[in-house]
């Protein structure tokens, strides 16, 4: 292995992520390579500094506000699902009733009947199309892989 290849593994060595055999070979190389030893020391010092830097632990009040915001979003999600379900049921029922009334009423001209039937069937086609698209997206969703773990 060339010095350059060993150099690429300096971070992995510092992080303890090398396999035992590779680690042993790396240590052998270090004994003969001053340049890699210097870089190892620099990277180890940087890692130590970065590991000492931590994020501020939020106060209890900040954590409470944070959780409230997440909780509200969770509730809103359920609200939207129920609202959408109700709206779909009512729209379907209303559309069916409208078509039924319009088709049965001889006083309504054929052009209005055609318009109403077209409107209702158009909405149904659009809804089915959107639902199918959502289904396809959910199957290839970029979040789906992590949630399958």
């Amino acid at each position, binding site marked *: 292995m060339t010095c350059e290849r060993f150099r690429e593994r300096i971070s992995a060595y510092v992080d303890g992520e090398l396999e035992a055999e590779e680690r042993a070979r790396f240590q052998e190389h270090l004994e003969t390579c001053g340049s890699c030893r210097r870089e190892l020391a620099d990277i180890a010092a940087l890692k130590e500094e970065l590991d000492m*830097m931590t*994020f501020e632990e939020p106060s209890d009040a900040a954590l409470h506000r*944070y959780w409230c*915001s*997440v909780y509200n*979003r*969770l509730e809103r*999600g359920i609200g939207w699902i129920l609202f959408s379900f109700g709206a779909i049921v009512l729209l379907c029922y209303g559309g069916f009733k409208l078509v039924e009334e319009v088709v049965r009423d001889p006083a309504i001209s054929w052009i209005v009947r055609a318009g109403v039937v077209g409107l209702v069937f158009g909405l149904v086609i659009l809804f089915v199309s959107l639902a199918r698209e959502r289904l396809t997206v959910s199957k290839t969703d970029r979040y789906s892989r992590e*949630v399958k*773990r």
Partner: protein
Amino acid sequence: MDETEAALIRRCQAGDKDAFGGIVRQYAGRATGAAYLMLGCREEALDASQEAFVRAWRHIRRFDPATHFYSWYARILRNECISRLRRRARRRTVALVGDPPSDGDGKDPALLMERTEWDRRVWRAILSLPAPQREIIVLAHFQGLSYKEMAQTIEIPIGTVMSRLHVARQALRTLLAGEE
């Protein structure tokens, strides 16, 4: 994963939102800080980390309690941040890859524990790294992921994680040396 967290996750999977509150409180600080380093804007970081928790909750039933919650959550958070950076790039018609989060609030991270002058320099240096390097530094040092977890999160081979992290550390060291 410790037993307490596994128990909390099982309660979450049974629909217990209070248990999820415990999980959220445990990781809120780390999640917001990591999102800040990805997005460069505190308000957006708060929003992104909260949205990622909402997504985690929605899929919690499929999560395996025997694995570590945060490494799973970190992947959701990472995707959420990338989506936001992409939307931002589309809005402003600038390139995403390689650009630092230049339209952030430009302040030092208020989330930083001890704000010495040296720490501020390090934060600024991290924020000025190109996106892929900044991301791997955040995952390794501030999200505490192993190489295997990073490889799964970014969807790259472990060998690439090794070399990318090393190049990122070299770049960070060079930036910091330039400021001394």
